[in-house]
């Protein structure tokens, strides 16, 4: 049976792994020893996860988001499962929002990303409380605010990478 023209092409291994690799790279950036008086860099892996969930949700299945969250837990010293649960929740919500919203302008995309990032902060607080840790709400909210400010830049990078993948036939475009 011939393939219909509206069925998407199967991605090459490089294209299939690119979202996961970029998010993992963002997690490694968070583990850098930057001398700051207070913690709370922008949550780069979460920004990339929200962006990729709207652009290419099929390339980040739930189990991949969970494993990426576990990696971030191990890198930042959080109890295992905190970011794992948060990433899965954000991935599900991001996939739903991306599949139903269709094409969006910059402001709409920013608002949608901000809502998902705040939801991720809420997931993180709930998961920390469930794990028996004391929840530092001001630090998490500051980190969420910085992430929201940086979200358009992260989304622009993801969109550009996705266009290059779509244009390059060798990479499954």
């Amino acid at each position, binding site marked *: 049976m011939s393939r*219909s023209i509206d069925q998407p092409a199967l991605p090459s291994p490089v294209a299939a792994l690119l979202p996961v690799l970029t998010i993992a790279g963002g997690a490694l950036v968070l583990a850098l020893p*930057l001398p*700051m008086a207070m*913690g709370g860099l922008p949550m780069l892996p979460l920004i990339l996860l929200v962006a990729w969930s709207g652009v290419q949700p099929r390339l980040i299945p739930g189990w991949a988001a969970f494993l990426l969250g576990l990696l971030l*837990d*191990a890198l*930042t*010293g959080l109890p295992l*499962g905190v970011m794992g649960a948060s990433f899965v929740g954000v991935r599900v919500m991001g996939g739903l929002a991306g599949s139903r919203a269709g094409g969006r302008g910059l402001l709409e995309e920013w608002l949608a990303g901000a809502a998902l990032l705040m939801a991720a902060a809420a997931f993180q607080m709930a998961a920390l409380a469930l794990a028996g840790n004391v929840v530092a709400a001001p*630090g998490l909210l500051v980190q969420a605010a910085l992430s929201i400010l940086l979200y358009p830049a992260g989304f622009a990078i993801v969109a550009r990478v996705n266009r290059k993948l779509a244009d390059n036939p060798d990479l499954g475009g």
Partner: protein
Amino acid sequence: MNDRAPISGRWGAGRRTSFARRDLNLALAGALLTGVILAFALLLLILARVNPELGARARGAVSDVLSPVTRLIMAPVNGVRALADRVGDHLDTVDKLRETEEALRAAERSVKESAAARAELREAEALLKLRRPERRLVVSAQASALSGSGAVRQATLAAGLRHGVQPRMPAIAAEGLAGRVTDVGLISARVMLLSDPNSRVPVQVERTGWTGIAAGTGEVDLLFLFDPASATDALRVGDRLVTSGDGGLFPPGLPVAIITDAGGSPPRARPLVRPAALGVLSIEAPWLPPAEPVATAPAADEPDQPVVPTVPAPVAAPVASPGPTP
């Protein structure tokens, strides 16, 4: 022909094609798998609440992988910092020499005044046969603070199990207490800093002797939790908090923080050790190691003693009261 479009027929419109059914089944399977993953994540969180040591090995192993990269990245930063310190020292040499000489003279006066008091204290301790635990240095290593998460405040230490580092050991900087060791790998470890929201250090006010807890908040300052009803004086800005030795983990007398807001409820204090410039940390053994139970032989079984029924004592007959006297 679009294979995905539903086929209408005698049995009603919208009969799903095989592709549509496959997509639906895949979506259901994906939703089920996501639910299972979420349930597993929640289980991990509950296990972490019951057993906080869960995942310590994994975090320690990741720390081992990151430690060489961290040291490589910090090498130029430390080099620039050392160069700046040398230049600053060179420019301020004369002034610093005068200050050092004055401080030395003051210290010599203080030593002479306290020598007699120390001698009396030693005699008193000898009379009481007082045993004072000694501090034991395990290893000294370079530390770098991590700033990636707003939920925790930690640092990585370039020493691990191979160097004798164990969890819960205190980490001490030149300025005072920096924190305690949490996760340990083979060649590196994580240190929970004082400003971590989960950090709790038993402290006392050096001037008055009041005891309390220095609690981290995730921000720069600590909270000093103490019972104000038991205070006989007011807390002042500039009061120093030192470890009290309660709990047996941190040795007493280590500088911890300085009160910056005495009127707050609770008062706030600024840690003396800055996370942005940790430098070299000394890891020491816990001041009072936990008592090791001594094995004793089990008690021998005793045979049951026969129960002898007790006979109640006879009640004495009432004595007649004498009549009134004429």
